[in-house]
C-alpha cells in the first residue's frame, strides 16, 4: 500500500477531565480511494474518533496524520481542513437556516479563498452532487429542500474543496429508505471518479456492505475487529461482531443473539476485556471451557498484532 491518506496512531480522546475515555488507544490507517466503515453502538466512540480527526475534539494522547503530515494546532489546521471534509447525520441541522444553498456551498470556498468564478464553482459542485439543474437550487433555503437534497448540498459543499478524505457521520441515518441508496451511490461515485477516501461512521451494517472496502467494529472506545468487509461481515470472529450481525433482520439463518443490558457507558469501564459483561461466550460458559475466563475478566487487550488484514481483539480467538 502506498502512503496512507489517514493514519491514526494510538489516539485517546477524553471527556470530563479524563474521567471518560471516549476513544481509548485506537489506531487505524486509510489508504487512497479506500472506504472504511466504522461500526458500533452509540457511545462506542466512533463519532468522537472522526470528530477528532477533523480537529473538533482535542487528542489526549496519540497522533493523527493526513497524507503523512501530522495534524496539529494553528496555521496548519486550516490547510488540513481543506483536505479533510465532513458530512453530518442531520443535514437539516448542519445547514444554517438563514443561508441560501448558494451561500452554504460558497462558505467553504470563501474560507479557503479558492480561486475561480465563485458562482460557477458552486453550480458545478451542486451538479456533481446530483442537484440538476443547479440554477434551480442556488436561491433556495434549506427548509425548501427535502432531506435527501439537503444531504446532497452538504456533500456538494464538502466536495467543492477537493478533499482527499471525506468523513461521514451516519450519512443516511436520518434519510428515508428509498433515498439512502442514492446518497450512498453518490458517495461511492466520488471514490471511483476522484479517488477520495471515506471514513463512514454508522450503526448500519448494510451501509458497510453497500460501500465499504473495510470494516472496523468499535466497542467502548476500542476497535475490537477490523478487516475487509467480506471477511468481517461474512465470517466475523469477535463475539460482539457476531451478535451485531445476528440482529440484522435481513440476515436469515443466523440464530439471534440479543445481548442483554444497556448500550455500554464509557464512564463505567469494565475491567479486563471491555465486552466481557455482555459477552455470550462468558455467559454460556464457553469461555470457562476454553480456560480463558480469568483473562476475559482481568486482562485488557487490544487488537492482535498485525498478522493479516483481518484482526480481532478477543481472548477466545487467541486461545
Amino acid at each position: 500500500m502506498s502512503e496512507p491518506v489517514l493514519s491514526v496512531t494510538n489516539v485517546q480522546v477524553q471527556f470530563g477531565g479524563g474521567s471518560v475515555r471516549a476513544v481509548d488507544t485506537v489506531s487505524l490507517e486509510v489508504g487512497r480511494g479506500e472506504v472504511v466503515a466504522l461500526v458500533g453502538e452509540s457511545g462506542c466512540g466512533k463519532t468522537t474518533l472522526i470528530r477528532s480527526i477533523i480537529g473538533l475534539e482535542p487528542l489526549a494522547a496519540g497522533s493523527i496524520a493526513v497524507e503523512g503530515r501530522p495534524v496539529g494546532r494553528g496555521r496548519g489546521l486550516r490547510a488540513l481542513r481543506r483536505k479533510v471534509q465532513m458530512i453530518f447525520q442531520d443535514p437539516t441541522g448542519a445547514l444554517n437556516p438563514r443561508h441560501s444553498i448558494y451561500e452554504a456551498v460558497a462558505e467553504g470556498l470563501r474560507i479557503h479563498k479558492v480561486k475561480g468564478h465563485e458562482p460557477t464553482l458552486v453550480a458545478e459542485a451542486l451538479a456533481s452532487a446530483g442537484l440538476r439543474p443547479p440554477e434551480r437550487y442556488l436561491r433556495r433555503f434549506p427548509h425548501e429542500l427535502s432531506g435527501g437534497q439537503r444531504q446532497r448540498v452538504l456533500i456538494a459543499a464538502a466536495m467543492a474543496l477537493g478533499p482527499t478524505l471525506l468523513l461521514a457521520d451516519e450519512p443516511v441515518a436520518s434519510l428515508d429508505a428509498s433515498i439512502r441508496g442514492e446518497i450512498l451511490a453518490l458517495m461511492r461515485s466520488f471514490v471511483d471518479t476522484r479517488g477520495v477516501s471515506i471514513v463512514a461512521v454508522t450503526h448500519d451494517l448494510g451501509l458497510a456492505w453497500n460501500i465499504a472496502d473495510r470494516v472496523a467494529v468499535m466497542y467502548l472506545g476500542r476497535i475490537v475487529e477490523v478487516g475487509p468487509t467480506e471477511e468481517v461481515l461474512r465470517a466475523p470472529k469477535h463475539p460482539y461482531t457476531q451478535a451485531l450481525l445476528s440482529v440484522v433482520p435481513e440476515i436469515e439463518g443466523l440464530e439471534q443473539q440479543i445481548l442483554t443490558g444497556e448500550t455500554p457507558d464509557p464512564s463505567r469501564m469494565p475491567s479486563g476485556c471491555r465486552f466481557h459483561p455482555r459477552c455470550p461466550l462468558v455467559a454460556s460458559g464457553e469461555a470457562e471451557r476454553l480456560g480463558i475466563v480469568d483473562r476475559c475478566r482481568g486482562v485488557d487487550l487490544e487488537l492482535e498484532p498485525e498478522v493479516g488484514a483481518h484482526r480481532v481483539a478477543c481472548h477466545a480467538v487467541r486461545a
Partner: protein
Amino acid sequence: MSVLELQDLHVTYRSEGGPVPAVRGVSLSLERGDTVGLAGESGCGKSTIAAAVLRLLPKGTEVSGKVLLDGEDVYAMKPGRLRAVRWTSAAIVFQGALHSLNPVRRVGNQIEEAILLHTAVSPRAARTRTGELLVKVGLPADRAQRYPHQLSGGQRQRVLIALALACDPKVLIADEPTTALDVMVQAQVLALLEELQREQGLSLLFITHDLSVLTTTCERLAVMYAGRIVEQGPGREVFAQPHHPYTRALAAAFPTIGDPASRMNPAGLAGDPPDPSALPSGCPFHVRCAVATAECSSLDVGLRVAAPGRSAACVHVEAAHV
C-alpha cells in the same frame, strides 16, 4: 370479527396552503392476535393512521370512511365512550420516548395515573399493577421511582410499552417504536413486543419506515405510498418477491449482507417521497418508477390481486396475470 378494521379511510389535514390529503382510502383489518405491519416513508400517511384510530387528529381534520374497533365505529362514539375506549381497547406506543413522558413526574406515577383513570381500583392496587407491568416489560419494579431522564432510551421505550399495556388493551399500535434506538436495544424491544403479543394475544399494528424490521415481526405487511396501500401480503413474501416497483425499490434499499448483488452496489430510488399537498397525477409513484408506462401518468389503479394472499396497486400486476 376483526379487532380493528379500517374501511376506506380518508384523512385530510387543513393547512394554510389548502387541504392536505394524508390518507386517501386505506382499508385494513387486524385480527385477534395478529401482527400487521405498515411500512412507508415520511409523509406516506402511516402515522396519521395511528392517530386516526383513536381520534387523536388535530381539530378541523376531515375524516371519512370508518374505523371499527371491535365492530364499533370510533367516529360515531360519544365523547365519554371515546375516552373509555382510548387506552382500554387500543393503546399507542409513540416514537420518541423522551417526549411522550412527562419529564417532571416519576414514571411509576404516570403508569398509575393511566390505570386509575380507566379502572376502578385502589391506588394501592394500581401501584402493585405498575410494578407487575414494569417487570413484564423487563424492567426492575423499582424503576417506577425514576424520572424519565434517569432512564436510558431503551428503558424509556419499555416504560412506554408498560404504559400502553396499563389497561389491558386488545390492540396495540406501535408507531416507530424502535426508530431512535441502537441496533441491539432495538432487537431487545422487538423481541419484547413479539413475546407480549404471543403471551397476551395482543393484536399489534406495527408502523415503521424500516421495512426490514417488519419482515421478521409481521405475518402481514402493508406498504404505503402517498396515502394509500400499494402492496399487501405476508411479510416475508412481500420483502422477498415484491410485486409493486416501489416495494421492490424499498426492499432493495435494505441490502442483504452477504448477497453479492448488493455488494458495492447501493440501490435506491431517484427523486423524493411525494409531498401530500401536491401529488403527481395518475399513479403518484410514476415519476419515480423505473417501469412506468405512458398510461401511468393518467391512470391510478387500485389494489389488484397479484397472487393468493397478495395484492399490489400497479398496472403491471394485471399484465403479469392475464
